């Protein structure tokens, strides 16, 4: 078997399991574990490749989770892209359909409330970890760290389309300040 084939297989299995862990905060909360798996544990791609995949998906239209497709593309070519995309999309979609068809009413809204309250801090922890791990990878210079900090302050204090900030980041980067 080709090397790309076996990498794509491992990606599929790992990402399919991860897809079912994306609760509350969405698929980007899976970024730390995807990074751990493809960069730290297996060395299929570099830090730079990983954060580039994330950034390209952010500036593209459509669901943000497509960064997983790019991670797969870089790790194992087209097979990898297909493997990660299918792995992220299909298991949760199947579960959604099954839930709709079965009309599961698992014990009424007390249980629903309890699951929701219990998952809230878990998903906040996941998104905090995501923020931490992306900033750690993206900010390997003082310029980068300053740019991240400025972005945070701007977004916390005013309503602005993030795409303008990303465009600004591209200019600052090209000027050689990052």
């Amino acid at each position, binding site marked *: 078997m080709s090397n790309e084939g076996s990498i794509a297989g491992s990606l599929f299995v790992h990402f399919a399991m991860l897809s079912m862990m994306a609760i509350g905060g969405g698929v980007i909360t899976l970024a730390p574990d995807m990074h751990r798996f493809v960069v730290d544990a297996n060395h299929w791609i570099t830090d730079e490749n990983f954060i580039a995949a994330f950034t390209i998906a952010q500036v593209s239209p459509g669901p943000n989770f497509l960064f997983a497709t790019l991670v797969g593309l870089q790790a194992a070519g087209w097979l990898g892209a297909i493997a990660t995309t299918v792995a992220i999309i299909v298991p949760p979609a199947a579960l959604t359909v099954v839930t709709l068809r079965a009309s599961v009413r698992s014990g009424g809204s007390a249980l629903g409330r309890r699951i929701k309250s219990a998952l809230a801090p*878990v998903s906040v*922890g996941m998104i905090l970890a995501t923020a931490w791990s992306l900033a750690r990878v993206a900010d390997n210079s003082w310029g980068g760290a300053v740019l991240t900090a400025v972005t945070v302050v701007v977004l916390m204090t005013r309503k602005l389309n993030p795409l303008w900030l990303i465009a600004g980041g591209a200019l600052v980067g090209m000027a050689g300040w990052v």
Partner: protein
Amino acid sequence: MPRQVLPPDVPAAAAAAPAALLPSQLFMLFTQTAILGFGGVLPWAYLFLVERRKVLSKLEFSELLAFAQILPGPTICNLAVIVGHRNAGLVGAMTALAGMIAAPLVIVTTLGVAYRHFGDLAPVKHALAGMSAVAAGLVVAMALKMARELPRLWKNVIFAGLMFAGVGLMRWPLLAVIGVLAPLAFISFGKWTRR
């Protein structure tokens, strides 16, 4: 009917389909929504589904969104599956999902292939470094906002903190950390929410 419907119950709106859309219409609707969704599809989903096409009422939208959020996986895809299913059954679910994904997938892979070819050029590398620092900032801001909305409870601080430490600082596998913390959180919220 006044019984408050909360996840994981399937909302009533998931079943009722007043003006059914055909699978092809669902595909087009979600394609439109997705390709306009720069930096987040959700606002566009609201605009198209509720305001323009009146496929859902405001209330139905928020009910179905809450349901889509509690299910694992990409929220926006779950929403597409639910709306598709409600209008045209299994085929509708599949075409709505396909519409949500197909066009963005082509765009993003095109950019990805371009990155593979040109990613090593200095201007591209530098621009991406700047854009990545901003993209990281977007996630940091989103994380802070989510943390701010969490009810001020000790157990929330503890579980969010442990999750952050395990996955972010220690870089332990997510499945293991969730596998331990989620059941503990579920147990800890047992008495508190019971009516």
